[in-house]
């Protein structure tokens, strides 16, 4: 073991040395010297380090090492070495008199007299502190006692209390709920109305309501297993995965842009979304899903459609700006791995490991080294795309391509030879009529062209190519044009202020179309530049009246401030300049190809090409080009593989190391891949060595997480499933089973459910089935005063807790009510924003998204930080981080969107059209109610609705109904 900077892990130590913080004074004779590790360190770790450690050194004091303690803070050293020295530390912790509160610790109770005595003696004895020993803060909970880290309880199903209805006898879940209700003095609610239950079930399992026909069929089905059959049918529906998949995508922070500054769309991420939907529809065992998420590429190289589960590791945000500063670059890389570590821990283990990046977790028994064991595990993971194919398929493709590519190369060589012959011929011919170079080479600092004595009204500058690459189509820049008149006093007329107009095709970023406008060439200022939309390009200047001019100047870097060839001073290469007095007849004034040296050999070739091929060359060229097209078509026909954003993996060159304070520049000991320490007592740990293959690292972690012995995996999953069925989990913080998270309302039930999941081989559907078949689930949501008084949130489930639909469900339901929901499954997503990219990306919410967007919301291409109407308004989370649960907020912005947005209008119109053929207004109202609410209207509602439709139109009626509470709430 290395001795340098090795953190001593004090919470283990504390467990061994007992729970008293007295520092075991009883075990030490009063005259034996104080033992730092056993007596002093526990006090400092528990009461001082919290505020005095690197990164959070209150008063500038860091008490984690001897060196730092001696260095001290703003009030000087904490203590000094040597006998009988004064000590700032002691004076801070000692009360002035027995009744006053000492200055420190600021939080919690003062230290006990015995503890002060220990510290006092220790300092008087010379403050002995082993040199390389670093103290760490003690977490609030510990692994041996924290509830979520203990083995799953093998609880017996409690007996049903006698007061409960007989049908609660059947399902074990009901026993647990009933037992708790009875203990709390609460009574269950009666069964829900069948229509309401059916609506609940459909939304819960598929995210969509039942149709009018489905409601009727159910109400007419009097067989005892009618409900059960409906459950089975819905679980088998492909809509199931589209609904539950959305939740999983929230949990794994799935987003389709990279976030950060550039935030560009990633167009090949959607296969992961389809993979999730498919996996859930197939009821893939959860351990299998975990293994695919963490190591699909390793485990299933020959099953690409499942292998791509590994995209999980890299679907989070990452910074791709590219930083030349090595310190920042290291931090950015560490942040990218952090995203994977945090996502893994919160998705599967329900622990917030991110807190252990800088120091041991303050609340949970997660060590900083646990964090870096995972960093070591994911050290070889990089964001990027990989072909979705088996090794054999890749080889096969290679074999098919080989002859075709050889042929293509042959034709290309032929074309190159032909070009060479042509160039040589023209060069020879030109030797007889040499170009007279009369002007200098073009330069970004400026070109000058002189005019004749003739009055000019218009000037046309045709840019044939740029000075960099004559064959590139990208934009050329001009920062300023100048048109100087002759004496007596020369005047620049190329100014908007002089009434001159200018046109030229400019690059137009969507959010600020004038960014590179041609007017920037005549604004009288250097710096800001016109950037052409493409090259070639034509710029036309029109003067306010005909003028006699002396010269034209054009530049892209007049001041010569940008040395070297950068994208910032790309200038024109070859060009022509023409003048006109009427805009009809043009007179050539200058042609750079005849007067200036070519900027490069490629420019020379381009000039010669302008002279044209002869008939023979043309014929040969056409033949070869035809052949080339043919072979390229054949190449395109060789089946190619989709490239998917699923990450790339490479063996790390160096071992990972503990980063002190989370700073890659502060090197702690090397850390190797291994299991986190906090489940050591409930399941086998593993530790790999420093050169373990990258693939083994992820595989080992996948095995560890997916093990039936991993209590967190199963508790967390069982709770997530419960959470979605009832709106709140048994633990109301589904992503946090630690000290800061909620405590289980029904701990025994949670463990029972976790065991059931394991029994079901990790399949979700059998558990869904058990839950929705329970009487607990089938209760009415109607409140009663006793229940509200005791438990307004219905955590004990004395009723089914009503809740608002989620953003996707609201939007999907509007499409469904309008009868226009396009249920095309899978494939590239649609967009509810306009995507603008000019170096960085900007997202502008669409005012009136067209029918191509009328798909289920899960197929929306979810860019990070895009904020789109409906989805963002109704609390769909920003996918920068895992979102294990959603908020339900009510805001006027929401109301404004839903009431006024064009999408509402379209859906209201579609819904009105759907029932248009029903002539009788009352029957029509009735049909609309059945579609929107899955029920008949009351007599009063028919009356009122028909009246509104008569006065304000049917579209206004449908608009009102799809805005109503009853439409948005699930009972």
């Amino acid at each position: 073991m290395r001795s340098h900077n090795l953190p001593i892990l004090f919470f283990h130590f504390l467990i061994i040395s007992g729970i008293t913080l007295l520092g075991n004074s009883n075990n030490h004779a009063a005259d034996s010297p104080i033992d730092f590790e056993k007596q002093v360190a526990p006090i400092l770790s528990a009461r001082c380090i919290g505020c005095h450690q690197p990164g959070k050194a209150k008063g500038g004091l860091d008490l984690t090492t001897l060196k730092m303690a001696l260095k001290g803070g703003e009030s000087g050293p904490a203590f000094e070495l040597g006998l009988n020295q004064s000590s700032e530390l002691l004076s801070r912790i000692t009360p002035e008199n027995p009744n006053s509160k000492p200055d420190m610790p600021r939080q919690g109770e003062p230290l006990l007299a015995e503890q002060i005595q220990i510290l006092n003696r220790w300092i008087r004895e010379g403050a002995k502190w082993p040199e390389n020993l670093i103290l760490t803060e003690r977490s609030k909970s510990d692994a041996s006692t924290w509830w979520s880290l203990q083995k799953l309880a093998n609880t017996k199903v409690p007996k049903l209390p006698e007061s409960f209805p007989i049908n609660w006898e059947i399902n074990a879940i009901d026993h647990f709920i009933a037992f708790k209700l009875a203990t709390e003095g609460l009574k269950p609610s009666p069964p829900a109305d069948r229509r309401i239950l059916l609506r609940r079930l459909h939304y819960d399992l598929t995210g969509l309501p039942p149709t009018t026909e489905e409601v009727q069929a159910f109400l007419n089905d009097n067989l005892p297993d009618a409900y059960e059959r409906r459950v089975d049918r819905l679980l088998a529906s492909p809509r199931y995965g589209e609904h539950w998949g959305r939740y999983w995508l929230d949990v794994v922070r799935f987003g389709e842009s990279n976030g950060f500054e550039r935030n560009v769309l990633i167009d090949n991420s959607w296969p992961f979304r389809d993979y999730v939907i498919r996996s859930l529809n197939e009821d893939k065992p959860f351990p299998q899903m975990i293994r695919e998420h963490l190591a699909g590429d390793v485990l299933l190289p020959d099953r690409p459609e499942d292998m791509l589960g590994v995209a999980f590791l890299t679907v989070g945000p990452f910074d791709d700006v590219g930083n030349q500063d090595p310190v920042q670059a290291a931090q950015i890389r560490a942040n990218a791995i952090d995203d994977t570590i945090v996502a893994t821990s919160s998705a599967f283990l329900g622990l917030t490991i991110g807190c252990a990046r800088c120091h041991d977790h303050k609340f949970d028994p997660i060590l900083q080294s646990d964090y870096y064991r995972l960093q070591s595990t994911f050290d070889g993971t990089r964001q990027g795309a990989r072909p979705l194919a088996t090794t054999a398929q890749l080889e096969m493709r290679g074999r098919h391509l080989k002859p075709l590519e050889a042929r293509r190369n042959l034709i290309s060589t032929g074309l190159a030879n032909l070009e060479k012959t042509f160039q040589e011929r023209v060069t020879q011919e030109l030797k007889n009529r040499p170009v007279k170079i009369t002007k200098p080479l073009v330069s970004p600092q400026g070109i000058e062209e002189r005019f004749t004595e003739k009055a000019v009204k218009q000037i046309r500058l045709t840019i044939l190519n740029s000075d960099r690459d004559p064959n590139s189509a990208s934009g050329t820049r001009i920062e300023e044009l100048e048109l100087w008149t002759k004496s007596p006093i020369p005047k620049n007329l190329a100014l908007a202020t002089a009434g001159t107009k200018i046109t030229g095709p400019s690059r137009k970023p969507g959010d600020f179309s004038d960014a590179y406008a041609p007017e920037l060439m005549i604004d009288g200022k250097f710096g800001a530049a016109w950037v052409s939309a493409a090259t070639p390009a034509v710029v036309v200047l029109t003067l306010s009246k005909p003028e006699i001019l002396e010269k034209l100047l054009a530049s892209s870097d007049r001041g010569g401030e940008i040395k070297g060839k950068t994208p910032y001073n790309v200038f024109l290469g070859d060009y022509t300049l023409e003048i006109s007095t009427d805009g009809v007849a043009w007179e050539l004034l200058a042609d750079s190809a005849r007067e200036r040296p070519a900027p490069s050999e490629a420019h020379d070739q381009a000039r010669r090409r302008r002279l044209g091929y002869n008939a023979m060359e043309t014929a040969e060229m056409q033949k070869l080009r035809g052949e080339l097209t043919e072979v390229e078509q054949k190449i395109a026909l060789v089946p190619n593989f989709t490239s998917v954003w699923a990450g790339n993996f490479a063996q790390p060159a160096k071992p990972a190391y503990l980063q002190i304070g989370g700073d890659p520049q502060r090197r702690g000991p090397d850390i190797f891949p291994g299991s986190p320490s906090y489940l050591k007592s409930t399941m086998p740990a593993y530790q790999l060595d420093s050169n373990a293959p990258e693939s083994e690292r992820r595989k080992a972690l996948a095995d560890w997480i997916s093990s039936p012995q991993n209590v967190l995996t199963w508790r967390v999953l069982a709770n997530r499933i419960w959470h979605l069925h009832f709106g709140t989990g048994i633990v109301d913080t589904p992503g946090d089973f630690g000290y800061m998270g909620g405590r289980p309302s029904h701990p025994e039930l949670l463990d029972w459910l976790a065991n059931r999941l394991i029994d079901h081989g990790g399949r979700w559907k059998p558990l869904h089935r058990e839950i929705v078949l329970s009487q607990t689930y089938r209760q009415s949501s109607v409140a009663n005063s006793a229940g509200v008084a005791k438990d307004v949130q219905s955590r004990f489930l004395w009723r089914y807790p009503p809740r608002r639909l989620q953003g996707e469900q609201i939007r999907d339901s509007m499409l469904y009510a309008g009868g226009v929901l396009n249920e095309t499954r899978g494939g590239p997503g649609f967009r509810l924003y306009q995507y603008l990219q000019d170096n960085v990306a900007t997202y502008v919410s669409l005012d009136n998204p067209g029918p191509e967007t009328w798909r289920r919301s899960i197929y929306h291409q979810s860019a990070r930080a895009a904020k789109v109407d409906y989805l963002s308004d109704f609390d769909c989370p920003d996918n920068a981080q895992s979102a294990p649960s959603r908020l339900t907020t009510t805001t006027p912005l929401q109301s404004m969107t839903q009431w006024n947005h064009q999408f509402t209008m379209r859906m209201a119109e579609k819904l009105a059209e759907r029932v248009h053929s029903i002539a009788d207004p009352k029957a029509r109202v009735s049909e609309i109610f059945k579609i929107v609410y899955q029920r008949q209207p009351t007599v009063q509602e028919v009356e009122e609705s028909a009246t509104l439709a008569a006065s304000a139109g049917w579209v206004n009626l449908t608009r009102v109904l799809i805005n109503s509470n009853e439409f948005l709430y699930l009972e």
Partner: protein
Amino acid sequence: MKFKDKRNKVMELKNTKMQDWLSRRGFMGDVAAGIIGVALMDLDRAESAEKPESWQPGKPQFEPKARQVLHIFCPGAASHIDLWDYKPALAQYHGTPLPGAEAFLSFQGKNGNLMKSPWPFIRSGQSGKPISSILPNVAKHADDIAFIHSMTSRSNTHGPGCIFMNTGFVREGFPSAGAWVGYALGSLNDNLPRFVAMPDVRGEPPNGKANWSNGFLPAAYQAVPMTAQQAIRNLNPPNEIRGESEKAARSYLDRINRRYADQHPDNTELSARVSSYELAARMQLAAPEATGMDGEPAHIRQLYGVDDANPLKSAYAKNCLMARRFLERGVRYVSLYCASRASGVDGLLNWDAHKTLKADYERHCPIFDQPTAALITDLKQRGLLEKDVLIIWTTEFGRMPTHQEGTSGRDHNPDAFTTWMMGAGVKGGTSYGATDEFGRKSVEKITTAHDFYATVLHLLGLDHERLTYYHNGTNRRLTDVHGHVIREILT
């Protein structure tokens, strides 16, 4: 059953709180029962973490010095040494190497020699504070400004730098300062948003909407983007539905929603939704009133430069004037941007002068200077800087004292930059902290965004360590786990 007892107590509290909140009905979602549940969940958490503080969002924790914030942000990294932080040594050693930086690589790579500022600095006000001559109008307010010269950032990249300066984190997904303040203090005007973002006409700042995001706070706390160029989205129904039929439809919606809420009296979210439609309707009237500038007299328009021939300056001037109107009407936090994102040409659309510092700032400063100075003057003459409005000016980081290799511009410098504050509670004419003689690094009283916001929150009557919100395992803060109030610049 100790745990259960506590839980029930919290639930009782939730019930009474809910009634309390409902009776107050602020604009952006105090009405929302769902939010209250969450806010109290936070309280619950604080309790379990043995935090004794009893403060609840909706009011300051102690007597505030300011009630509102005007946040002016110049994205692109506005150069401290060319605007605010006078470094005579740059002129003296112009063209010589920066000692000890031979192999230094910054964001875009290698750097050349030291480069003096293209503009002289001029002593301004009674305090004699040297300010760049390219900002003659803002310089007139020098005696009211407290400069913080020793700022540092965690990122040298615009996007992360901007969100760090707005949210306290370099990664996305965290609430911005305006969202925190709205969450902490609630609303002063029920009919307007608490938090308004005013992006520049040239586009959104680096990292876009993440700069005014609610992060993990409820949606009610996000900023509503509203500028002279961009009205609130979906404020009004489409043209085809206006007038009587709109009124009839609204009234019917109100009736059926109330009926449904009456049938489910336990669910306060339902009546909250009824209220939210009423608020939206009031907003339809209040927002155009706040943004309409027709009534502004000619001398005010002239003061700001609203009708300037430069369309970019005119656009920013209009936003400045609109910002004043928002503040007058009780918007809590106004985030006003001058310049935008990165572009195909560095320094064109924002303050990112990599290549041509002089040309770039001669374009940006005239856009910024007069309207900003006018906004300060106007707020001051209306007495709003005494007890109401705190003005903060920020950018994401500074620039290098050297020129970037082969150019006349400066590369990114996360180790030193200047921000400033003025207005309610701030001691004007002060300069806090310092950079080294070239402005390369902050050396004296090194300050971060966390210290900066600890101070802002302090002025608003909030202890930055007690303004927390539970999210994914942690009680999150605007100031992360850092931050010290800069007392030296307070009155």
